[in-house]
């Protein structure tokens, strides 16, 4: 079964420990002009996770909420389905991981991800696509990802996806402050990282128009015809080729013009 993380946004204080943990664990660089926390941080090749301070409103009162963002590790990852070299793969434990040696660098994954997670090493000669790997090494050993384990307020709960989903349901049902929506339960066909919040998700910059159909199905709805096209269209073409050729030959023999 796949593992997941429940992110309870009501508990986040914006300390940014998780962003630092991610860099310390994955050896990613700190870039002064591209911070991982603040009001407008950006996911980049070095920032696999960011925490955005959202100054918003709740019940007419100004409130600040902090949104930790990273790859959601979709159950049916669009990025993996988009990669034509299998550089992105979903592991059995949940993490959607990336194999640099397979990547060609077409960046279709970046376009495909409904959450715009994968980022590119634009400044490198041989750039790679980067994103949160859910600390796949740790998860494989049954440990929580680095960012999860350092959070001082326990914003994140690591566990089996169905268990954390049940926990999420219980939490939002038992406490009226939560909005009755588990982000990631259905989005993009379900993600392994799921969020609960007391402020509507669209106010927090979440994409709320994401389809609930797993994105790979869109491609599949088209690709499934490929074999039929090959066989059908192929034989039709061959047939037409042979037929028209023969007809022309006969016509030629009869020294007649063919009008079509």
């Amino acid at each position, binding site marked *: 079964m796949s593992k997941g993380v429940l992110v309870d946004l009501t508990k986040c204080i914006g300390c940014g420990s998780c962003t630092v943990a991610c860099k310390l664990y994955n050896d990613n660089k700190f870039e002064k002009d591209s911070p991982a926390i603040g009001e407008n941080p950006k996911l980049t090749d070095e920032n696999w996770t960011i925490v955005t301070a959202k100054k918003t409103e709740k019940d007419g009162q100004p409130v600040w909420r902090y949104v930790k963002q990273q790859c959601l590790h979709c159950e049916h990852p669009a990025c993996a389905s988009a990669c034509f070299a299998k550089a992105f793969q979903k592991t059995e434990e949940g993490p959607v991981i990336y194999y640099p040696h397979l990547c060609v660098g077409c960046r279709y994954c970046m376009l495909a991800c409904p959450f715009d997670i994968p980022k590119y090493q634009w400044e490198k000669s041989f750039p790679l696509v980067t994103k949160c790997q859910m600390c796949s090494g740790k998860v494989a050993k049954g440990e929580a990802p680095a960012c999860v384990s350092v959070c001082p307020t326990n914003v994140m709960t690591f566990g089996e996806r169905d268990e954390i989903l049940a926990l999420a349901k219980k939490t939002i049902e038992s406490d009226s402050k939560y909005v009755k929506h588990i982000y990631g339960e259905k989005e993009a066909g379900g993600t392994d990282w799921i969020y609960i919040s007391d402020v509507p998700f669209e106010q927090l910059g979440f994409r709320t128009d994401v389809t609930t159909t797993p994105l790979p199905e869109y491609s*599949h709805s088209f690709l499934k015809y490929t074999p039929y096209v090959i066989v059908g269209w192929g034989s039709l073409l061959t047939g037409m*080729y042979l037929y028209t050729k023969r007809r022309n030959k006969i016509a030629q023999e009869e020294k007649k013009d*063919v009008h079509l």
Partner: protein
Amino acid sequence: MAATNTQSWSFRLTPTRVLLFILAGMAAAIALWRLIVGLGPTTNLNDQWPWGLWIGFDVLTGVALAGGGYSTALIVHILHINKFNEIGRSAMLTSMLGYLLVMAGLFLDIGQWFNFWRPFVSWGYHSVLFEVFWCVSLYTTIQVIEFGEILTERVAKPWHKFFRKIMPFLLIVGVLLPTMHQSSLGGLYLIEVGKLHPLWWSPFIPLFFLMSSFFVGPAMVAVETSLAGRAYNHQVDLKVLRGLAKIGGTLMVIYLALKAIDFSNRDAWQYVFAGGLESNMFLLETIGGVIIPLIILISPWGKTRSGLVTYGALTALGVVVNRLNVVITGMVNYYGPGYIPAWTEIVVSAGLVAGGILAYCFIVENFNILGHHEEHEAA
């Protein structure tokens, strides 16, 4: 006129060609620089806009415009409609060059270019791009082999027989593959659901790509033969052009009808006249690139050479705008403005085209392309 088998190689240098050479040379230099230092320093692509002019123009548009090859191949070689024979070779040559340029453009655009062969061994078959990749690379190979038939008329002559033998197979596969990848290029954008503007995103986008790539074939032939005709004093019979245009026109009508049905199904009419960048670009592409050409075709002007050339040019431009709309305009709303092609990207794109024109001229001047009337002897 075109070469006969005993002539020596010839290539005239005119001022235009010098200019084209300079352009191609600059493009080559930039391309080399890009391969060394990466994409960041040499393009305006960024995390927000991972795909830009090179994919939009060099690849998507290039493949569509080169579609003339397979539509004429279908008409000439599969349906054996002999009256179109005389344009067969030139259309297929343009197509082959087009595809080679597409491959070059793609090669420049991929980050780990030394790894380009990877999908041949690591099969990401869930990806539409996988189909595109295989089809485009196979098709390009096949076109090069097809060209072998022409080539061996002049060099490595002993092979000519062999090439003639395998031609039927090549032709059939050579129509099959483009059918697949022309549509799958549209299919790439299926996964952009919710990102690509509803004016372009549609579950039928593969079909629209396929149809437009088909009807742009005759249009391109009209433009190209008139250009080549002027340059090489070789005029293709007006009847042939008109016949082709009629086939294209019919398809364009069906295309429009399908789009209308699709828009009704998806409730997308509201966006058509909504004003703003998207709807304006969409109207440009549809009115300027489909409806007006159709009107020209029906009108008496459509019976003249200039009318047909205008029809062809507008249709081709319409497809160019359509592809760029899908890659760029249709994404602006989602990604926000943040990408204007860098001069380097523009020069490389232009340089690729320049290189293509030069290669076309060279081949036309040295091989039997324009004057060819294929006779179907027993194969």
